[in-house]
């Protein structure tokens, strides 16, 4: 018997419906699985943050009471590790940045501070000042943990489900409202409002934020003067400037005019030059034009860069490093005061390898750090310093160099270029006390040349 059209249609529909249901169930399962996976991942970060923050508090209190140098050493390294881990996990939570920023800063500073102490504190017992700082940090960590345990309670009570927090945040991101986890964490942030100002010898110390640029000499320039400075400075490869547009006024550490030199109608025909308001120094220059195949050698590019600096009245610079990338050569120069390389005073230039035009100039670091320094003569001779280097390494060259410390301080060192096997290292030996300050390893160098 031939089945009727009705039966065929019904069976077809039933099969389709069944298939759709199966597909839907599969989807639901997959979604739930993904949901649980994500939930677990965020919960891990959350509980890890909680545990590590508690550890930080415990370790700080141990540090306050410890009298043993060896024990102190272990406590400080533990503190560094736990604070870092807490900060890292905290920043993986799906909450808005503004509700964890301060907690994050506190944890960064505790870790950084502990690391600085392990490095600098040779006797491994705390000075009164350091003990006071640690006391302060301990108190902050106590109130931090008190608030954190409230968040933990909220979490335990099921007040927020990370994946919901996440999808909620997706929506809120545009509206700017807050989710439940955000609310819980916001209380922590409010509690940390009066974070102690921490001054120590590390990269996250509060003094770095407050540093004022030292290289801005001269008097204030007007906008018209700035336009002319920009026009005279830039290497436009023979093109004539049609317009010198004030694109922006920068209100940063170095207040500047951003001048755009337009040589055509395309967006890439605009070279941007930042000129500082004080002194009219060029802070940076960028020419975005496309560079065709390289024709210049590294030496030719270097000669072009040196010519450029000289013609702009920037003298006393020595090239330190060249990087060849995308037909552009980026060359770093450091200032040389007497016979000392001053690494904090760095400018960088970019030379197009198709025609030798200087496309870029960067002096933010130079203008921040540069001043005539009173460099005390070294207490160690180069020969004495050389004995401090591992006898396994072969010394290729040496010179005096002022290098920046992690907290933007400066130390006078001997820079030794050394070789161990196929690897090249720059070893810096403190010229006043003979200590090894820093080791830099030069990475694979096919496109880069170190000038020393």
């Amino acid at each position, binding site marked *: 018997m031939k089945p009727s*059209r*009705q039966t065929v*249609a*019904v069976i*077809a*529909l039933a099969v*389709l419906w069944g298939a*759709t249901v199966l*597909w839907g169930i599969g*989807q639901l399962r997959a979604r739930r699985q993904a949901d649980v996976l994500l939930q677990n991942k965020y919960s891990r970060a959350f509980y890890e943050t909680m545990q590590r923050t508690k550890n930080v508090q415990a370790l700080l209190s141990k540090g306050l009471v410890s009298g043993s140098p060896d024990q102190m050493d272990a406590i400080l390294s533990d503190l560094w590790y736990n604070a870092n881990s807490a900060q*890292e996990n905290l*920043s*993986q*939570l*799906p909450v*808005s*940045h503004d509700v964890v920023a301060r907690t*994050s*800063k506190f944890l960064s500073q505790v870790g*950084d501070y502990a690391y600085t102490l392990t490095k600098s504190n040779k006797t491994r017992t705390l000075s009164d000042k350091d003990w006071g700082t640690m006391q302060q940090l301990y108190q902050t960590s106590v109130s931090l943990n008190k608030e954190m345990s409230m968040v933990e309670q909220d979490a335990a009570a099921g007040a927020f489900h990370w994946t919901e927090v996440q999808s909620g945040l997706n929506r809120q*991101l*545009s*509206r*700017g409202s807050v989710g439940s986890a955000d609310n819980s964490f916001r209380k922590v942030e409010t509690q940390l409002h009066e974070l102690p100002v921490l001054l120590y010898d590390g*990269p*996250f110390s509060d003094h770095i934020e407050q540093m004022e640029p030292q290289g801005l000499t001269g008097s204030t320039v007007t906008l018209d003067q700035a336009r002319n400075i920009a026009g005279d400075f830039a290497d436009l490869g023979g093109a004539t400037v049609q317009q010198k547009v004030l694109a*922006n*006024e*920068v*209100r*940063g550490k*170095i207040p*500047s005019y*951003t001048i755009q030199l337009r040589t055509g109608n395309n*967006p*890439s025909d605009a070279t*941007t030059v*930042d000129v500082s308001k004080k002194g009219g120094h060029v*802070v*940076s220059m*960028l020419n*975005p034009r496309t560079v065709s195949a390289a024709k210049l050698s590294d030496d030719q590019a270097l000669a072009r860069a040196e010519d450029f600096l000289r013609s702009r009245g920037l003298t006393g610079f020595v090239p330190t*490093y060249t*990087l060849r990338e*995308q037909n*552009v050569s*980026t060359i770093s120069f450091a200032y040389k005061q007497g016979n000392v390389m001053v690494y904090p005073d760095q400018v*960088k230039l970019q030379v197009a390898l198709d025609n030798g035009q200087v496309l*870029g100039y*960067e002096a933010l*670091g130079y203008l921040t750090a540069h001043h005539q320094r009173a460099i005390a003569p070294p207490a160690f001779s180069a020969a004495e310093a050389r004995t401090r280097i591992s006898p396994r390494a072969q010394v290729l060259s040496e010179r005096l160099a002022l290098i920046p410390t992690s907290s933007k301080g400066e130390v006078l060192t001997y820079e030794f270029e050394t070789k161990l096997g196929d690897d090249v290292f*720059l070893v810096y030996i403190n010229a006043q006390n003979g200590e090894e300050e*820093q080791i*830099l*390893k*030069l*990475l*694979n160098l*096919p496109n*880069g040349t170190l000038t020393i």
Partner: protein
Amino acid sequence: MKFADLRGRPGFLAAWACLVLLLAGTAYYVFGFGAQRPFLPHTGPGVQIQKMAEAAPETNSDNVSLLARVIQGEAGDEPYDGKVAVGAVLLNRMQSSAFPHTLPGVVFQPYAFESVANGLIWTSQPSSDCLRAAIDALSGWDPAHGALYFWNPSKSVNPWVWTRQILTQIGHQIFAR
């Protein structure tokens, strides 16, 4: 039991609708998810940056391609200095105590960047412009003078960002610290 008459127009329309839905669903399953899958870290077209390795905490060698992707996602339509500035913001965050201290940490911080949150950074290879911008930022160029935040004022953003100190505007984006 009597079925409704399925031989008429409504019955066939319903059958066709089911079929179309099923096909569409299958297509979405097969292709839709396929498009979101490429989480494989492609290495950029031959880009490597050679730099002196700092002792800690981060070397920049493998970061060019990741940085370029974020630049493309966040500032693909912006002028060149706007692209470099976005790259510089990410690097400035690494130096700030309030942010993660590694580039992947900064890039993948939940909701830090829209193009990372919605997967846009994985949809295409970064353009040569974005790669060059990433290299410039890693070499130290910072057109935004130390900014930690940027946003497009024509889009709605968390009102909190307006409490930050605005440093400059490049293209369509405001840069702040």
